[in-house]
């Protein structure tokens, strides 16, 4: 399950299956239909980017997949069983990164905690923590508390925690929103190399179209709420990507334009729904 594997070899095996998912938030005088009808599948080892306007229901979708929210209708099936709680071996980077770090622990202990839970030996834990913090460019803040860090640094701690965990499913909710352009580029490459190395099935929510195209094998475009899948675009860029050459290729520009057009459509026909 966690052995290294190439993506094409397992493309057909469905890992995650979202079927007619619907989510209505009730209560406190407001009832919001956040997600109307989402259906899509993700194969094992896929890297899928999800884009959509603000308030589209991306976070809602991610939380349902993580088993943190119960869908109002439809179902989320992971490895053949309906999700009803956080499945093992999954890591999530929350949009509310600041609040997802434990203020009573130092950065190192924050990253280490899930590893302890996995009962890894001390030496291995320490190695993983080091590597992860190094990878996100935070090798020098081990003993700081999260609230002593800047916003972008906090977000990177949350990312480090997820990658140190070596999950086989990785859910990330706008994980690079608070970091600068250069760091962002570095982190994008980090995610791709991680995915290559571990074969992690990854769902990546972002509002940056370039990022979605650069990272993903597929880009799911969501409409604005009540949400449906507007488009599911396969990204046929070469497997080896590079910030400079990939981004300046014509195919990149085409795909970028295609996603952009869909998003524009999503924004314009607010409410007027037309399933993909």
């Amino acid at each position: 399950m966690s052995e290294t594997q190439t993506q094409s070899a397992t493309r057909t095996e469905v890992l995650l299956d979202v079927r007619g998912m619907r989510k209505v938030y009730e209560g406190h005088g407001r009832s919001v239909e956040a997600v109307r009808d989402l259906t899509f599948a993700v194969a094992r080892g896929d890297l899928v980017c999800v884009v959509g306007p603000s308030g589209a229901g991306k976070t809602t979708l991610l939380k349902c997949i993580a088993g943190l929210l119960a869908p109002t209708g439809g179902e989320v099936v992971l490895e053949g069983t309906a999700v009803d709680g956080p499945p093992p071996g999954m890591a999530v980077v929350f949009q509310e990164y600041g609040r997802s770090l434990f203020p009573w622990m130092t950065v190192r202990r924050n990253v280490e905690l899930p590893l302890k839970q996995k009962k890894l030996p001390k030496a291995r834990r320490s190695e993983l923590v080091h590597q992860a913090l190094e990878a996100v460019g935070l090798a020098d803040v081990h003993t700081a508390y999260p609230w002593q860090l800047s916003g972008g640094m906090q977000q990177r701690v949350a990312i480090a925690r997820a990658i140190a965990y070596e999950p086989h499913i990785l859910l990330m909710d706008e994980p690079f929103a608070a970091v600068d352009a250069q760091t962002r580029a570095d982190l994008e490459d980090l995610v791709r190399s991680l995915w290559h190395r571990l074969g992690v099935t990854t769902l990546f929510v972002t509002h940056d179209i370039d990022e979605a195209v650069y990272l993903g094998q597929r880009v799911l475009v969501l409409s604005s709420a009540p949400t449906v899948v507007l488009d599911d675009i396969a990204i046929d860029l070469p497997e080896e990507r590079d910030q400079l050459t990939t981004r300046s290729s014509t195919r990149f520009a085409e795909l970028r334009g295609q996603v952009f057009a869909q998003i524009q459509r999503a924004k314009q026909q607010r409410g007027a729904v037309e399933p993909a």
Partner: protein
Amino acid sequence: MAGGNALLGVLGFATFLALLEAVPRAGLVSPDYLPPLSRVGGALADLAGEAAFWTALGDTVRGWFLGLAIAVALGVTVGFVIGTVPVLREFTASTIEFLRPIPSVALIPLAVLVFGTELRSVLLLVVYASFWQVLVQVLYGVRDVDPVASETARTFGLSRWARVRHVTWPTALPYVLTGVRLAAAVALILAITAELVIGAPGLGNEIGIAQSGGAVARMYALVVVTGLLGVAVNVLARRLERWLLSWHPSLRREVVS
């Protein structure tokens, strides 16, 4: 900074003491009934010379500490069990509300019946009264867990126990400590009241004897001793808090900026 705080505290206490001296002297009340501080101080000095006083103090502190320890252990355990299992919480809420206001003092005859005037009588009352203080604080603390934090823990596969240990416990800790501080005071009050009413040995009993003998200054000296015990308890609790909660917004703000 800590030194400055301590200084302010001493200043505050000195103001209070000056007031205690001034009120009877100014004739606002008769010094026969509320002797000025200086006379209470004299009685306090007499007390310090009596072996019996130290024994009584020891008795009270023992009853108080044992009772408090039992109440805190029980309160925290029961609170976490009930607080983290929603069904339990739902089904015990009414019973807790019902039992909580039954005053320990109403249980005195029962305590005497079962345990006589021994330490255990005092313990029963102390534990009963302070248990609720801790329990309720713990329940509120557990409720206050930040869902984003607990969801994070859940997604990383932390077991129920690990979540309690790493997420619920630190969140509830400030509440627990407030609960311990409240319970410490209630336990002291109950230990002394129980000694006073039941006649078990301790400061309360000494207060009763001084009271029924009309030894007013001595009685106030003993009251002052209970108050000082309270201050000491609080100083300890604050130490503990500073040590355990350095990450908490209420404490870290004082250091930053």
